[in-house]
Structure formats: structure tokens, C-alpha cells
């Protein structure tokens, strides 16, 4: 490793690259070198973004999307961890449930959306249930790999201190699998936003970022605003990633100490 160009150099270069990219895009679009009437210059998109972020009605739609994704992700964490623990600790469950899971899992979560919309109508319930189905799998499988990676000596030690089976799962296995589970949650968080927006687009009723985009696309809103809304969605998922990364580093710093 070259210590001369540490993290600060990479940040400087990253920022420089990004600014150069924006400047080139601005120059290309506004001078007409690249004739794409369909792409507004970055400054116009940024203005559109600013207008959206300061508009209460758009922020309301962002909140709809955030709520749907968050409720779905929460349900997926409960379902994924519960199923993962059951599958990892009980041979009977594994034998009976795993074949069913192997058959059900290949069906993409978004494919449940039409059925769920039919049953529960458009709204938080159908959207967040679709999100929950799509997000359960990564959490479930990361929980399982976390349980597979538990140090058997730790389990034996806990047993010899006459911990009950449930006590071992709770105080040893679940704790040592928690970084893996959190990785699953991080993967699922980006899936949650994608699925949430996809379901909003399926039968748009003007709610959520997806609904806003679907309305804007058909209703003659200017392109800078549409691109602006798309980038706000990007910003949202960037913030979420950053937040979860920070939590991961804070909460699971001890993992580094274990040399894992």
C-alpha cells in the first residue's frame, strides 16, 4: 500500500473527478456539442432538485416512500432473523422448510405486488408487504451464514456453564452472528427502496416518489424536475447507505478486534 496518498488524496481525487464530470456534462449539454434535447444541463437539474426539496408537497411524497420502505424492511428483519434462527438451530425446521423456501425464493419479490395490491388495495400495506417479501431473503441467508460461523468452542463453553439451549442462541450465537445479520440488513435496505418505488410505479396513484415520477412523466412536467426527483431518490439511498455504514462501523467495531 502506498501510504503517501492516503484517504485524503482519494477524497480529493474523488471530489475532483465528480466536479470535472459535472462541468463536462454542463459544457457538453449547454453548448450543444452533444445534441441530446432530452438531457437538461446539471445546473438546471440541481435547480429542479432544490425546488423539489424545498416543496412541502414533494417532501410528503418522499416521506410516503421512506415509510413504505422502512415498514417493509422492519417486517423483513423480524421475519428474516426468526426464520434464519429456526433454520440454523432446528434440523426438523430445516428439513421441512428449506425445500419450500428453495421453491418460493426464486420468485422475485416485485412479482407479488399485483396480488398484494388486489388483496390489500393500493397503500402502505400492499407496498410494504411486497418490500418485506423481497427483503427477507438476504437477511435470512446472512443470519444463516452468521450462525454457521459461530465459534463452536464458544457454544460449548456456554453449555458447560449450563446455559439453556435458548440461552446459548440468544447470548452466544445471535450476538456473534449480529455483524452478518447487519450486512443482510444493509443489502436489504437498498432493495427496499427499489421495490417500494417499483410498486409505486405499477399502479400509480400519485403517491410516493414513484407515483410522482409516473404522474410527471405523463403530465408534461419539465424534464429538469423529473431528473431532479430521480436524483433526490438517489440522494435518499446514498444517505441511507451512509447512515447504515456509520452504524455498522460504530456497532461492530469489535469485529475487527477478533480478526474477522
Amino acid at each position, binding site marked *: 500500500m*502506498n501510504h503517501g496518498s492516503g484517504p485524503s*488524496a*482519494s477524497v480529493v*481525487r*474523488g*471530489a*475532483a*473527478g*465528480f466536479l470535472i464530470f459535472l462541468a463536462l456534462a454542463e459544457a457538453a449539454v449547454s453548448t450543444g456539442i452533444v445534441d441530446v434535447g*432530452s*438531457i437538461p444541463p446539471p445546473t438546471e437539474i440541481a435547480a429542479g432538485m432544490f425546488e423539489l426539496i424545498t416543496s412541502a408537497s414533494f417532501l410528503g411524497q418522499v416521506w410516503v416512500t421512506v415509510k413504505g420502505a422502512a415498514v417493509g424492511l422492519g417486517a423483513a428483519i423480524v421475519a428474516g432473523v426468526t426464520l434464519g434462527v429456526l433454520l440454523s438451530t432446528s434440523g426438523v425446521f430445516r*428439513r*421441512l*422448510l*428449506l*425445500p*419450500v423456501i*428453495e*421453491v*418460493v*425464493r*426464486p*420468485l*422475485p*419479490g*416485485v*412479482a*407479488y*405486488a*399485483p*396480488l398484494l*395490491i*388486489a*388483496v390489500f388495495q393500493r397503500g402502505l400495506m400492499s407496498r410494504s408487504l411486497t418490500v418485506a417479501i423481497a427483503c427477507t431473503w438476504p437477511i435470512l441467508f446472512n443470519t444463516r451464514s452468521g450462525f454457521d460461523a459461530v465459534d463452536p468452542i464458544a457454544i460449548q463453553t456456554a453449555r458447560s456453564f449450563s446455559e439453556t439451549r435458548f440461552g446459548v442462541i440468544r447470548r452466544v450465537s445471535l450476538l456473534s452472528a449480529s455483524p452478518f445479520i447487519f450486512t443482510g440488513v444493509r443489502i436489504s435496505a*437498498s432493495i427496499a*427502496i*427499489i421495490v417500494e*418505488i*417499483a410498486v409505486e*410505479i*405499477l*399502479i*400509480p396513484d400519485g403517491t410516493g*416518489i*414513484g407515483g410522482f*415520477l*409516473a404522474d*410527471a*412523466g405523463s403530465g408534461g412536467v419539465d*424534464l429538469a424536475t*423529473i*431528473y431532479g*426527483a*430521480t*436524483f433526490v*431518490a*438517489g440522494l435518499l*439511498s*446514498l444517505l441511507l*447507505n451512509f447512515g447504515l455504514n456509520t452504524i455498522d462501523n460504530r456497532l461492530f467495531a469489535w469485529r475487527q478486534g477478533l480478526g474477522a
Partner: protein
Amino acid sequence: MSMSGRVWRVVTALGSLTVVVIGWQLLTASSESYFFPPPSEVFPHLWRGHGGIAEPPYLSPSPSDLFLGAGFYEDLVPSMWRMLRGYAMATAVGIGTGTALGLSRAARQYTDWIINFVRAIPPPALLGIWIVVFGLGDGPKIYLIAFAVVWPILLNTIDGVASVDEQRKQVAAVFKIPFRRQLTGLYLPSASPKIISGMRISLGFALIMMIISEFAGATNGLGFRLKEDLSFFNFPDLWATMILLSAIGLLLNGLMFWAEARILGWHRKASEVSNL
């Protein structure tokens, strides 16, 4: 695992699946809800036309049709063809760009923010604009699939190429191996396990994006049919398409694991030999 153990496992697996299907049949047959038609009604929709609002079936009972129904040609093939083209585009762009960025540390640093910013955009949010920009044809759907699935391939290629063993690079330099041959003989083979695992992640994701890309501005395809079946309250056909999608997902998974095992089996042997 012993032979009898394996047989026992298959028996319990099939047993539990049978119980699930029978339970599904019993529960739905006794219920009045038309959201949940019994499997005995759903499965025939895969191969028999039902007229009226019913969609053309994917399969056909007639051998002269090669057992393929109109729905196969009108919806399944267009969907899969778009998915394949989007996936191929993502693979080409991902491996190409990823190799270039993997070779140069400076290039990686300069593009880091751009990649992270663009990658954060949830792909379905682009569907609206791209329909406006590229029209209602196959274009926006293929680009959407490619945009969504390029990231695992790109990032894994960068990672794989950037982490090629330092000693091997020096050997290549000492013997003045031409760059082209270093690429095909050193960088790409060394990076192949990472590239292939990125391609596997992307293939599953391509199926998801294929469905999403047909949720708006489509006139055929499996995702389009899901949407149509919802608007016409045609639930037997909706379930039939869901079953078909599970089967496709299962098939793609199997295909990719098979390909990975084959290609990486070679890789494992090759690196074992060179580690002697």
C-alpha cells in the same frame, strides 16, 4: 453423505412440498376468495386457453406446437430476449470499464464518487424518464435492465483486476509480456472468480428488473401480464405467471451455479498447479 441419507433428504423434501401443494389446494378450494384460486384451477392456465379475458397460455398440450403456446412467443420470449440483451450489455460494459479502472489506481480514485452517486439511483426511478426519452419500444427496458445490473459486475471486475497478485505482475513485467497478453493471460483469468460471482448476482437481479421494466409503457412481456391480470382481476392467470417466474428464477440459478462450477473448477486447478 451416505446414500440412504441422501434418499431420506429427497423424500422429506418432496414430502413437504406435496404437503404444501395439498394444503394450498384444500385451503383455497374451500375459500370463496377469488384472489386465491386453487392450484387445480391455476395450473391448467399454463397450457390451456380459456377465452374471454384470459391470457394466451405459455404451453400447449399439442406436440405439433412443440408443447409451446401463444403466450410463450408473445410474452415469454420478448421478456427473456430483452433481459438477455440488457444483461449482455451490462456484462460488456461492466467487464470493459471494470478492467480499465482496475488497472489504474488514479482512475479508480477519480471515478469513485461518480460511480457511487450514479449507482445510488434506484433504477425504477429512471423508468419514467427513459420512457419519455427513448420511447415505448424495447430500448428503455433494455437500458433499464443494463443500468440496474451493471454494478455488481463492474465493482467485482474492478476489485478482481486491482487485486491481482503483485508477484505475477512483476513476472509479466520482467519477461516483457505484451500488454494484450497480460490482459488475457493474467488479469482477466485472475479476476474471473470475482467477475463470475458478480455476473451471478446480476443475473438474478436482471430477472427482477425485467419484471419492473414492464410495469410501465409495455405492450407485452411477463411483467406486463402481471399488471394486465391485476387490472382485469384475472387471478388464475396471475398465479400461472407467478409460477412460471419461479420456474425461470430456479432455472437461471441452476444455470449460473453450473457455469460457475465449471469455469471456476478450471480456475481452482490452474491456481493449484501454479502454487506448487
